[in-house]
């Protein structure tokens, strides 16, 4: 079979769309089981309190109620504390117990206190209100920096100063860099807390087969295999008796990258009541009970020579972890943050102290970008402050410090070795697409008329494609980071591809089919990608950290290579030719020099599946399994440019243009890659302009609904202008890098710096994000009071 266009590199329409556009998505909340009961979680209204009384007698008598359980009930049944799967070495990390249902004390508003199982969701909810819990409230801390002070109340009695860990990254001669500097800029940078807000709230459906001692759990998860592994460690059910299925998952962005308490509660409840149990989160619950992201406060200094050569970066960062450690909490503000402080630049000396801090707030873990947005914002903001200080064009300053092109690894001061990079072409392309020089002229003219026009430019590099398992082990990640794939040909030549990763909206059912189609010469539509079911797929470590395609494609390619080899042997046998005379191209095995004599891969699949005539020493069947552990992370990069205009009367920001040039290596499906970048830009721009979680001093989440927490709407955003360069990596066979998070990582500082550039004539240098009209208006007012 020949194809006129390679499947690799084509904007193939997504195979998975068919079910979503017709209302046949298989989301967890759409599923039912015979005899299913519903679970509702009663949550703490207090941020910090001792539970002094618990009376469920009234609730138990209410219509439809099947059972009410609390933390002690779960502990008695052998359900332990939630697992923390990442403990960073040399950081003195404290891992206080995180019971799935609180025992004795609650530590954040939304901490789970009890579960009610009833015939309907409404009955369970009614009954939850009738549970009489008495609380003795305790002092509350919400701010990550203040929580470390000596007079702060303790979230966990055994964790002094609420300090979960102190982690340090240090490379180069930092003290000397600052001593030798002509100029030092310093700033306190707040990466405010964000709420991931995947459109699908979390849901769990658990079925317990008591005869076989087996659990089947459908869950809104990015990590079914990890969840099975972790649940086997903290519940009474062994790993081979747990099946985790993540059917269609309606977005994750890191918020479904944990073994969550409600998963274990649902299994416990199904065991207790002897019926399948379903729990579905309300949006209000999602704001309280699903992890948050970011929440760093950092004191940052950047040292440079007067010509703009950067000498060193020094920072102290307080990372608010919330009340408990979620599955991946501690790795985010350390490994994924501190190691990336060189960004796209030569910074010879870097030192950061990171303090992980417990507070009486919702647990904080990985949210799209996870650590790299915080690092990139720090570096990019400091670069703009340095440019201001030196009266240099921010592009000129960046260009001067960009890492030169490299194809064989480049080590930065934090110890990371970037894989491949060529940063300047992306910068040049972005400047050209945007028309940078002309825009600066127009800006000057606009400023002369009192208009506040601003331009922000970011050159970034990020780390993703997690990652080499040896490194995972060395940095305390509690698992591997390799991937697996099985490519199976059915007798008719149709293909099933089973992968260990768990796409949840990124389109890999199509992308992976394109890889198979491209390599084996089958139709894209003939490849069915199976994922996210631990009973049907080989072990894998899930979808996060923009690792799905860079890592899983290595395993897919490994299986493909095996099939090419086996197919060659079988074809040679059937064609009565020597193996070395058989070549394979476009789905056809043929004898060199006589392509008319050949066997299609479908012929070979049938021959191997029937096995009527196999060559000596070749087993029947036409499928192959492969594992792939990458030799390094991948480091995508690019340049983003934003243009805004601020209304000096109202502080409103007109978000006018956005140009992004990203490099993720060779592109399998341009349409899908562009979609990832666009969505990422929207989320990152939202951190700069609109989104921010806000707690009062009693730990109440004031931004606890979609009425109060402003995720972007269509009308908020400009059209995105996208470009690309393609620099392959050498760490996987296809040369591909991850693209799921670059938009988010780059766009926050780009948009923020654009607004600050607009306000520069007024002397405004710092406003906390998000840059709401009120904050901008106040900053303008304060600046003018200051005599400007």
């Amino acid at each position, binding site marked *: 079979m020949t194809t006129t266009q390679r499947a690799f590199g084509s904007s193939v329409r997504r195979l998975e769309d068919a079910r979503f556009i017709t209302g046949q*998505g298989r*989301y967890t909340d759409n599923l039912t089981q015979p005899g299913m009961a519903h679970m509702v979680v009663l949550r703490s209204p207090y941020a910090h309190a001792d539970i002094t009384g618990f009376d469920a007698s009234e609730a138990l008598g209410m219509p439809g109620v099947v059972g009410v359980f609390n933390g002690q009930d779960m502990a008695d049944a052998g359900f332990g504390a939630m697992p923390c799967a990442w403990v960073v070495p040399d950081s003195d990390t404290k891992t206080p117990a995180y019971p799935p249902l609180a025992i004795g004390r609650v530590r954040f508003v939304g901490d789970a206190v009890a579960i009610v199982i009833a015939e309907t969701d409404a009955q369970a909810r009614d009954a939850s209100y009738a549970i009489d819990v008495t609380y003795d409230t305790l002092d509350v801390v919400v701010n990550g920096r203040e929580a470390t002070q000596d007079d702060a109340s303790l979230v966990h009695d055994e964790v002094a100063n609420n300090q979960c860990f102190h982690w340090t990254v240090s490379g180069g001669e930092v003290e000397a860099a600052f001593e030798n500097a002509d100029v030092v800029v310093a700033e306190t940078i707040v990466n405010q807390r964000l709420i991931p807000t*995947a459109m*699908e709230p979390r849901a769990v459906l658990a079925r317990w087969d008591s005869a076989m001692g087996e659990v089947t759990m459908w869950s809104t998860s990015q990590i079914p295999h990890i969840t099975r592994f972790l649940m086997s460690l903290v519940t009474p059910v062994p790993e081979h008796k747990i099946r985790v299925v993540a059917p269609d998952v309606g977005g994750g962005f890191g918020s479904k990258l944990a073994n969550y308490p409600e998963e274990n509660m649902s299994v416990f409840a199904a065991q207790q009541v002897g019926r399948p149990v379903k729990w579905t989160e309300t949006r*209000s619950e999602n704001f309280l009970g699903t992890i948050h992201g970011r929440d760093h406060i950092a004191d940052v200094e950047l040292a440079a020579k007067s010509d703009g050569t950067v000498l060193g970066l020094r920072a102290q960062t307080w990372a608010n972890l919330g009340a408990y450690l979620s599955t991946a909490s501690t790795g985010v503000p350390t490994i994924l943050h501190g190691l990336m402080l060189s960004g796209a630049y030569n910074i010879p000396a870097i030192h950061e102290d990171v303090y992980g801090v417990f507070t009486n707030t919702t647990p904080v873990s990985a949210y799209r970008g996870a650590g790299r947005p915080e690092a990139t914002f720090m570096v990019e903001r400091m670069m703009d402050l340095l440019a201001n200080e030196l009266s240099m064009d921010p592009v000129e300053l960046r260009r001067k410090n960009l890492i030169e092109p490299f194809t064989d690894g480049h080590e930065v001061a934090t110890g990371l070795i970037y894989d491949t990079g060529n940063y300047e072409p992306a910068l040049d392309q972005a400047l050209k697409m945007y028309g940078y020089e002309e825009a600066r002229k127009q800006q000057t003219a606009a400023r002369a008329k009192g208009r506040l026009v601003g331009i922000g430019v970011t050159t970034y590099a990020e780390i993703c494609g997690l990652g080499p398992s040896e490194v995972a082990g060395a940095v305390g990640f509690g698992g591997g980071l390799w991937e697996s794939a099985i490519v199976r040909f059915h007798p008719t030549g149709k293909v099933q591809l089973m992968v260990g990763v768990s796409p949840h*909206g990124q389109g890999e059912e199509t992308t992976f089919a394109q890889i198979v189609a491209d390599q084996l010469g089958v139709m894209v539509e003939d490849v069915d990608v199976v994922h996210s079911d631990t009973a049907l797929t080989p072990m894998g470590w899930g979808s996060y950290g923009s690792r799905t395609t860079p890592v899983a494609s290595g395993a897919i390619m490994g299986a493909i290579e095996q099939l090419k080899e086996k197919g060659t042997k079988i074809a040679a046998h059937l064609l009565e030719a020597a193996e070395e005379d058989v070549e394979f191209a476009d789905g056809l095995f043929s004898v060199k020099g006589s392509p008319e004599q050949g066997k299609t891969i479908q012929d070979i699949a049938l021959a191997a599946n029937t096995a009527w005539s196999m060559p000596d020493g070749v087993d029947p069947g036409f499928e192959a399994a492969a594992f792939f552990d990458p030799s390094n992370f991948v480091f995508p990069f690019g340049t983003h440019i934003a243009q805004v205009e601020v209304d000096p009367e109202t502080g409103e920001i007109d978000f006018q243009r956005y140009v992004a040039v990203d490099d993720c290596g060779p592109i399998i499906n341009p349409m899908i890659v562009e979609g990832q970048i666009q969505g990422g830009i929207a989320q990152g721009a939202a951190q700069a302009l609109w989104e921010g979680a806000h707690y009062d001093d009693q730990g109440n989440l004031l931004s606890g609904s979609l*009425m109060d927490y402003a995720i*972007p709407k269509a009308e908020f*955003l400009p059209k*995105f202008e996208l470009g690309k360069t393609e620099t392959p990596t050498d760490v996987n066979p296809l040369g591909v890098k991850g693209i799921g998070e670059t938009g988010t990582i780059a766009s926050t500082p780009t948009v923020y710096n654009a607004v600050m550039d607009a306000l520069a004539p007024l002397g405004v240098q710092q406003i906390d994000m998000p840059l709401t009209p009120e904050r901008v208006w106040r900053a303008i007012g304060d600046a003018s009071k200051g005599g400007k």
Partner: protein
Amino acid sequence: MEVSIKVNGKSYERDIEARTLLVDFIREDLGLTGTNVGCDTTQCGSCTVHMNGAAVKSCTVLAVQADGASIATIESLASDGELHAMQQAFTDKHGLQCGFCTPGMIMTAVKLVESHPDISEDDIRHGLEGNLCRCTGYENVVRAVAEGARLFDPHSPWEMEPAEHKITLREAERRARERSGA
């Protein structure tokens, strides 16, 4: 309470609790799970359906308020295996990623282009203000809606009955050809 609600052309008589939301009636009582629930404060629009010909958020309508009404859900848009033009446009233009907001987006978009004969990008962006998407950054959603608008003739008479309430891609292309004089 007894209600009689026509959903996707079929009448259903049910005895329901007064507090039952229309979306729960659709999802739980009728098992039509294409309509999703993404929030509890009427912001996200994932649950958008057509009620007597208007796009409404079914989480903000009590089922008893829909007594006697005619409802169309995402499941009714395609007919005889052929996609509605707006569905086709969403997949052609990659207007969806995780797909959760998509049924509501499409149901809103159908009504939006119907009420805007010469819809502009600005009209689309403002018209979608009641539908949140976290994946796409809206760029391709906007493109999809524009494509859907191009594909079907907004001047054609639209019936409220779901059975009439659709135009297939083939029909849309035929009309587009007619309009362009081809």
